[in-house]
């Protein structure tokens, strides 16, 4: 009875009220740490990244190559069948440029990011990563890119073993996607 309700309740507190203790508060931080078991699919994916390779899984029924790999096909609901290496080149499906860091703080150097369909993965199967060595105004959907890896000795089996994707140079990676 919106029009008939006289009072909507709630007591506003400004950030300053809180910071300067005019509104008393309890501060706390949880102890919430985890060691997630990577399992079969992600365990292998991370191990392959350490070797400078990107691996997916193929479902023989629908024929898709899935990156990141999983041991099940979500469309067919059956186990996936085989490991498939995909290339470290691909095509930008969508992109943006972040002026914010992980805690939504403003950052000096904006980060370009993209969803990239890797060559060898099924159409539409992309992965999220950063872009680098590129002028922001040159980034386009459809742009061809290639992974820039950390040196082998610095890799730890993580998505960050790829530093970023850079634009393909002319004549590079012309074999294209499947």
């Amino acid at each position, binding site marked *: 009875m919106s029009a008939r309700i006289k009072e909507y309740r709630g007591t506003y507190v400004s950030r300053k009220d809180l910071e300067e203790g005019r*509104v008393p*508060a309890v501060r706390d*931080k949880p102890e919430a*740490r*985890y060691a997630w*078991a*990577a399992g079969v699919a992600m365990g292998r994916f991370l191990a392959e990244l350490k070797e400078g390779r990107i691996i997916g899984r193929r479902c023989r029924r629908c024929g898709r190559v899935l990156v990141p790999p999983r041991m*099940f096909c979500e469309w067919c609901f059956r186990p996936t069948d085989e490991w498939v290496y995909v290339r470290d080149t691909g095509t930008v499906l969508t992109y943006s440029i972040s002026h914010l860091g992980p805690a939504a703080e403003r950052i000096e150097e904006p980060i370009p990011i993209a969803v990239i369909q890797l060559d060898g993965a099924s159409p539409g199967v992309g992965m999220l990563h950063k872009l680098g060595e590129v002028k922001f105004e040159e980034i386009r959907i459809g742009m061809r890119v290639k992974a820039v890896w950390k040196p082998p000795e610095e890799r730890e089996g993580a998505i960050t073993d790829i530093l970023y994707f850079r634009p393909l140079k002319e004549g590079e990676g012309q074999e294209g996607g499947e």
Partner: protein
Amino acid sequence: MSTERVRLPHEIRHWYGDMEADYTYTLGIAGERFFAGLKEGHILGAKCPRCGAIWVPPSIYCPECFEELTEWVELPDEGTVYTFTVTHLGPDGKPLEKPEVYAFILLDGATGGLLHKLGEVRPEEVYIGMRVKAVWAPPEERKGAITDIRYFRPVE
């Protein structure tokens, strides 16, 4: 169920991470009043106009009747041990140096009471029904927190 499993120990991989962030909780309407009371050396409860219950710690609503509670009642800082436990582990699960006695103290006149430590008593002397009284921190050390009461001690 998949066509392949991990078998060798060195192929088992874990990924470490956390869900830790900083939080600041406003005390709320009832909490602000209650903790301000502790700072002044008072234990405040909230009285339900419908069922007459006096809730400690207080709330702005009666959990039973869902009436809004606006009447504040000062309660004595004495009560009865309703239940207690001799605690050997700290909050992180590590052993305490010396066992502590935690109790739920039913405050005289209240529907609820306070969870707190007992002091000035040996664990084997504590019993359900024991009369206890709050031992307060000196006024200048109080911060408007539950630790403004240091512990409850036997009164007999």
